């Protein structure tokens, strides 16, 4: 690292080279945090997590009982720190969701607003300070997933995936659903906006297809992603033009928006090139998929190469995105892991599952905190003493 620091000083390397190298090293050494954890408020499983994109300070979590909790992640440098919960929308609140909350998301520009969608067929837009819903969108069927674009300046659309095969676009400004994207033939399990293009939307459904939409066009569907890239020979005839050989469970764009990672119930991860819509044919091997609803996996940010953190039963499997190599398994949960989210600034992973725990995975680089050493100072100074000093007792 010192060579990189001096190279940055004299201009041989770009400043981003050092930050990328160190971020990659940290991402590849994630371990369960020994000092920090998150206060346990949920009584039942946690379905979804989101970290606010503005400061990276607040963690929003939604549980299977409809409870929504906000925790403050700001770390105090002391041993055994528990991130406290700032506020909770519990079972006693008047506006709480009736059934399980499947997706929560912070508003991308400030923490005054967040959205949550639930099995009680509603999508609620909450005012964080008042903890009351500013708006409620009601649907005819269970809402599986919703997503708001993080780079949008020209629209405030929330894409919603329900049991209905149509993707509904709800507008925050007008308070009603503006239009509907038709194309899928079964429930839509996962929707994601591209972080690169504010009008590009990807949706994955139970009919094994992933569709890319441009919401500006009348016939919005840009393309249906095909796992065989047009070659009919490889699979059976039913598998033609499908993205997976099972339901498409999870979608995640890489941070630059150039690639889309998809997870399916056929136990496969696929990497798609967003610009051409082709399957890059990276082979990740068999990745056990236990979830029959959406699986909220995540892709790291700031490293090269980036890795995907995929919940596999009670563990989280880490794969290098571009080569498909298996990096590690993060073992720590007692029950199925439902969601993971990556903290972009500190290269930490937050994961939660049916055991109601939110675990923090931090980079383990072999560095000890200074606080611990100060406490043992008296004992250590005698052992780590003067090099010339001998250890013979003075009494003899």
């Amino acid at each position, binding site marked *: *690292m010192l*060579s*990189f620091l001096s190279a940055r000083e004299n201009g041989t390397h770009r400043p981003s080279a050092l930050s*990328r*190298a*160190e971020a*990659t*090293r940290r991402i*590849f*050494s994630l*371990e369960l945090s020994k000092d920090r954890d998150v206060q346990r408020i949920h009584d039942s499983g946690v379905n979804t997590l989101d970290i606010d994109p503005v400061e990276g300070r607040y963690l929003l979590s939604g549980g299977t009982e409809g409870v929504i909790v906000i925790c403050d992640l700001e770390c105090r440098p002391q041993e055994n720190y528990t991130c406290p919960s700032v506020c909770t929308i519990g079972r006693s609140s008047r506006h709480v969701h009736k059934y399980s909350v499947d997706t929560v998301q912070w508003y991308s520009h400030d923490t005054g607003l967040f959205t949550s969608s639930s099995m009680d067929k509603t999508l609620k837009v909450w005012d964080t300070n008042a903890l009351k819903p500013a708006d409620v969108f009601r649907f005819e069927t269970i809402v599986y997933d919703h997503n708001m674009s993080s780079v949008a300046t020209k629209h405030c659309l929330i894409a919603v995936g329900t049991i209905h095969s149509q993707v509904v676009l709800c507008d925050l400004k007008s308070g009603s659903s503006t239009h509907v994207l038709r194309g899928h033939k079964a429930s839509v399990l996962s929707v994601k906006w591209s972080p690169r293009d504010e009008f590009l939307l990807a949706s994955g459904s139970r009919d094994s297809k992933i569709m890319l939409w441009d919401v500006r066009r009348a016939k919005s569907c840009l393309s249906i992603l095909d796992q065989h890239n047009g*070659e*009919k*020979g*490889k*699979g*059976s*005839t039913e*598998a033609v033009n499908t993205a997976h*050989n099972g339901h498409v469970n999870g979608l995640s764009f890489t941070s630059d928006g150039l690639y889309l990672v998809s997870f399916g119930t*056929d136990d496969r991860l696929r990497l798609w090139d967003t610009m051409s819509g082709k399957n890059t*044919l*990276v*082979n*990740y*091997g*068999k990745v056990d998929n236990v979830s029959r609803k959406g699986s909220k996996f995540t892709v790291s940010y700031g490293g090269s*190469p980036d890795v995907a953190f995929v919940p596999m039963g009670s563990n989280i499997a880490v794969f290098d995105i571009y*080569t*498909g*190599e298996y*990096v*590690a398994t993060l073992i720590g949960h007692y029950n199925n892991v439902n969601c993971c989210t990556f903290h972009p600034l500190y290269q930490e992973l937050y994961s939660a599952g049916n055991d109601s725990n939110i675990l923090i995975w931090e980079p*383990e680089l*072999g560095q000890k905190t200074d606080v611990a050493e100060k406490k043992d100072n008296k004992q250590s100074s005698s052992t780590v003493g003067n090099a010339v000093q001998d250890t013979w007792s003075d009494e003899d």
Partner: protein
Amino acid sequence: MKRSKRIVPDVFKKKRKVVVSAGLQSDWGCDQDSILSNLALPNDTKVALDYVKSLLHVEVFEFRIPTIIFKHQIYSIVHNKTTVDRQLEELKEKKVIKMFKLGIAVDEFCIVFTDDYKQHVKRQEPDNKTIDKFLDTVVDRCPDVSLTKSTMINEFCFTDEEITHLVSAGLLTVRDVGSWWLAIPGAGIFMKTFVKGRQSLLRTIRKCKYQEILQKNLEEKKLAAVKKLGMNFHILDIIGAELVKKIQTTSGCLLRLNE
């Protein structure tokens, strides 16, 4: 001390790659270009294919089958699956190997060297004009796993009669109305022995305490169903198909059954 041995990519470029200049090799008195021509060096997948081929002894089947290698066996030798896939595609384009779809699972493929395949087909049915025509046109020119009726009739000029003849000879298997998989004639006996051997091996591991066994103990066991194809062949198969997990321990390599 880190308990888990994870391979972190060399981000700070601590290890310098050794670059050997071409000039150094010339004092051996040979032509520089011939030694260092990359085309002559086989890639990892090709070496793996040759190794697996050496494990299988076709004499056991009285030469009724060519040497069949499964794609997932290569995954257990070369660890990066994407590299294996890419190199297999390259070899397919160069017509060195041919890939066939075997089994019910969607992505189970087997690989046969093109020369072996041609030899085997000629041995099965010598002096048959349709088959020779098939070998010269389709096998040589088309790297696909399956064929449709339109391709057969238009591109390769086969008549319906000839197609029926090929199906009865076992070179084509019906997939759908108007499309066929390419197949290996007489591969039935291979598949039967292979499936039996695989089941027997998995049953042995399942019977062990904790459903795991050291690889050297497994190799010492004498199983009748495994004898024909060889223990090494089957072990590569179950590791590659992810039915079993390979764990390095201080007593050697451990194979644990995946649930």
